[in-house]
C-alpha cells in the first residue's frame, strides 16, 4: 500500500519511533513502522516498551494531523518595498499530496472539528483548504486504550466510523481493510487483497470493542458545558492554577487547538517583509494582550479560558465539542493535570 500511494504521488507519513516516542514522519516502507512497540501513558508520563502486538499496538503520540493542515509556521503575506510604497501579495498556498497511515478515530474527529473551524465560517483559511484537499487518510482501529484515553465518552472512538479513505484493522495474521471513499477503493484495487472471511470480519469488529472496554476516564458530554459555565468562580480554578505551569504543552499537542499569531519577519534592509503565522497558546500572556493589559493576566484565568473553550464555548461556536478524548493534554502535561478530574471536581457545583 505504501508503494502504491507513493506511485500515485503521495508523500506517505506514518508512525515511527523517534526521540523515545511514536511520532509522525515520512516513511518509505513497512519496515519503518514501529513493529511490536507499545506506549505506556499516564498523566505526565509516556514510555515505549516492547510488545508482541504488531504494527499498531501503540495509540496516539504527541503528533496529530494538525501540523499537516495547519502548519506550526507559515507565510500569509509577502511585502516588498517598491519606491515609496509597498507591494503586498498573498502567497499561493502549497498543495502537497500527503497520505497519512495509521490515523486513529479521535484524530479523524479532530480533523472534522478543524474543518469546521478553518472552512466552516465566512472566512475560509486558504492554506488549510489547500492542504486538506491533498490529504489521503488510512485509518487504523485501535486495539487497545491507554489510561489517558477517553474517546468513548466523547463519542469519537475507538472504532473508526467515517472520515477516512481506507480503514485498517490489525489481526494476528494480517489486516482487514475497509473502504471509506471512492479514492480509497481505487488504491485498494491495485493491491493484492482477498475477500475477508466472516470470522475475520467478526474478529476485526472485536478489536475496537476490546480497546473501548479498557477505558476508565470519562467526561459527561451532555452536562460538561453547563458544569463549567455555571462554575466560572469555582475554587477548583484556583486549585488547578497552583499546579499548572502555564507552559502551553496541552495546547501544542491538542489536535484541535487552533490559536495563532502573525509576526513580522523583515530583512535587515527593511525592504522585504514576510508575515508569518505561528501557533499560539491561550496560556501565553500575549494571547490576550490589549492596550489596557492582558485580559487573562494569571494562570487561573488562562486555564479557565482553555478548559471552558475546549469543552463548553466551542460547542456554542462550532456546534461540536473541541475535545476528542485523545488524552494527549493529560499525558504531555509536565505536572499531569487531568482535565477529566478537573471537570469532575466541578460537577455538583461549588463545595
Amino acid at each position, binding site marked *: 500500500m505504501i508503494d502504491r500511494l507513493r506511485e500515485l504521488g503521495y508523500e506517505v507519513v506514518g508512525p515511527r519511533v523517534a526521540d523515545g516516542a511514536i511520532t509522525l514522519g515520512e516513511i518509505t516502507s513497512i519496515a519503518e513502522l514501529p513493529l511490536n512497540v507499545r506506549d505506556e501513558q499516564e498523566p505526565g508520563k509516556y514510555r515505549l516498551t516492547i510488545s508482541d502486538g504488531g504494527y499498531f499496538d501503540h495509540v496516539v503520540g504527541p503528533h496529530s494531523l494538525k501540523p499537516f493542515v495547519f502548519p506550526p509556521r507559515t507565510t*500569509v*503575506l509577502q*511585502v516588498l*518595498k517598491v519606491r*515609496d*510604497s*509597498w507591494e*503586498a501579495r*498573498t502567497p499561493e498556498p502549497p498543495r502537497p499530496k500527503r497520505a497519512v497511515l495509521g490515523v486513529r478515530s479521535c484524530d479523524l474527529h479532530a480533523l472534522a472539528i478543524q474543518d469546521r*473551524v*478553518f472552512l466552516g*465560517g*465566512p*472566512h475560509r*483559511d*486558504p492554506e488549510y483548504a489547500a492542504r486538506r484537499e491533498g490529504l489521503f487518510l488510512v485509518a487504523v482501529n485501535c486495539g487497545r486504550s491507554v489510561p489517558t484515553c477517553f474517546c468513548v465518552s466523547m463519542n469519537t472512538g475507538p472504532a473508526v466510523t467515517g472520515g477516512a479513505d481506507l480503514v485498517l484493522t490489525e489481526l494476528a495474521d494480517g489486516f482487514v481493510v475497509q473502504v471509506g471513499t471512492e479514492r480509497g477503493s481505487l488504491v485498494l484495487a491495485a493491491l493484492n487483497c482477498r475477500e475477508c472471511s466472516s470470522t475475520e470480519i467478526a474478529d476485526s469488529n472485536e478489536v475496537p470493542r476490546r480497546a473501548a472496554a479498557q477505558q476508565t476516564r470519562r467526561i459527561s458530554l451532555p452536562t460538561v458545558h453547563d458544569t463549567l*459555565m455555571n462554575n*466560572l*468562580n469555582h475554587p477548583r480554578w484556583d486549585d488547578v492554577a497552583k499546579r499548572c505551569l502555564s507552559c502551553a504543552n496541552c495546547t501544542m499537542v491538542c489536535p484541535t487547538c*487552533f*490559536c*495563532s*499569531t*502573525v*509576526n*513580522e519577519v*523583515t530583512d535587515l534592509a*527593511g525592504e522585504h*517583509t514576510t*508575515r508569518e503565522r505561528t501557533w*499560539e497558546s*491561550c496560556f501565553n500572556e*500575549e*494571547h*490576550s*494582550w*490589549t*492596550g*489596557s493589559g492582558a*485580559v*487573562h*493576566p*494569571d494562570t*487561573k*484565568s488562562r486555564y*479557565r*479560558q482553555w478548559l*471552558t*473553550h475546549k469543552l463548553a*464555548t466551542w460547542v*456554542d*461556536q462550532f456546534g461540536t465539542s473541541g475535545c476528542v478524548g485523545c488524552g494527549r493534554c493529560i499525558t504531555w502535561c509536565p505536572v499531569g493535570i487531568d482535565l477529566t478530574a478537573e471537570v469532575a471536581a466541578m460537577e455538583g457545583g461549588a463545595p
Partner: protein
Amino acid sequence: MTPLPVNPWHVHMTTVQAVLPETPGVTTYDLTFDDPNAGYAFRPGQFNMLYLPGIGEAAISVSSDPGEAAKLRHTVRALGNVTRAMTRLHPGDKLGVRGPFGTVWPVDDCRGRDVVIAAGGLGLAPLRPVLYHLSRHRADYGRVTLLYGTRSPVDLLYTNEYEAWRAAGIDVQPTVDSAGGDWHGSIGFVTALLARLPLEPTRTVVFTCGPEVMMRFVASEAVARGVPASQVFVSLERNMNCAVGLCGHCQFGPEFVCKDGPVFPFDRVRRLLLVENF
C-alpha cells in the same frame, strides 16, 4: 457591504493625507486608498486592521463619516508598537488597511427611537460615525443625546465638531473627572449624566463605548432606568490578530469579538462581563 476578499490576509495600500494631533497621545490619520477601485465601504462601529510593514497590525475602529467612505479616518492612541510607530507617519506615507471587520451600531434598526450615546475617552472614536449618520438622517430619529466623559478638558476629542452636532439637533453633554476654573461644563462620570437624563426607557436605545468598567456601569444604569438590555449596545475590546475569527485571540466566552462583535447587545454579554478576567 463590501464583498470580502477571498484571502483574509489581503492588504489594501493607502496614502496618509493628513495627520491631526487631537489630544495628548491621540492622533487622527486621514487615509485614501491607492487603488481607486478598492470599493471600500464601512458601517458605523466597524474596525480596520492598520498595517505598517515590518512592524505589524493594530485593530482600530473607523471614526469617519460612513457617507464618505473614500475619506477614511482613524483616531489612534499611541500605546503599542504599531500605534507608536504610526506617530512617525507624515502626509504621503503609506499605511496598509485590511477591513472593514465586525458588527455595527444598529442605526438602521433604531429609526424612530431616542438614541443615547455614552462615550468615555477614546471611546468616542468608534461612535463618531454614528453621530455623522444621525446628523445626516436626523429626522429619522427621536431625541439624540451624546454623553461624553474624559479625565480632563484637554482629553475631550473632536471639540470643534460639537457645535455642528448641536446644530443638527443633538444634545451634546461633555463631562470631565476634574478641571480647572476655566471649565464651565459638567464634572463627574458619564453615569451621573445618564442618571439624571430624562428618558422614555422603552423607546430608547443606548450605544456605549469606553473602558469596560465604564460601559458596565452605563449599561447597568440604563437597565436600572428601564431600558431593555437588548436595546443597550456595548463595544468590546480584545486582542485582535486575524480579525476574521481564525486566530482565537479575541475570544470572549462563545463570542469571537472580531466577527461576532465588537458591538454586542448588552443582554448577550452581561453575565460574562461580570466574571473577573474572563
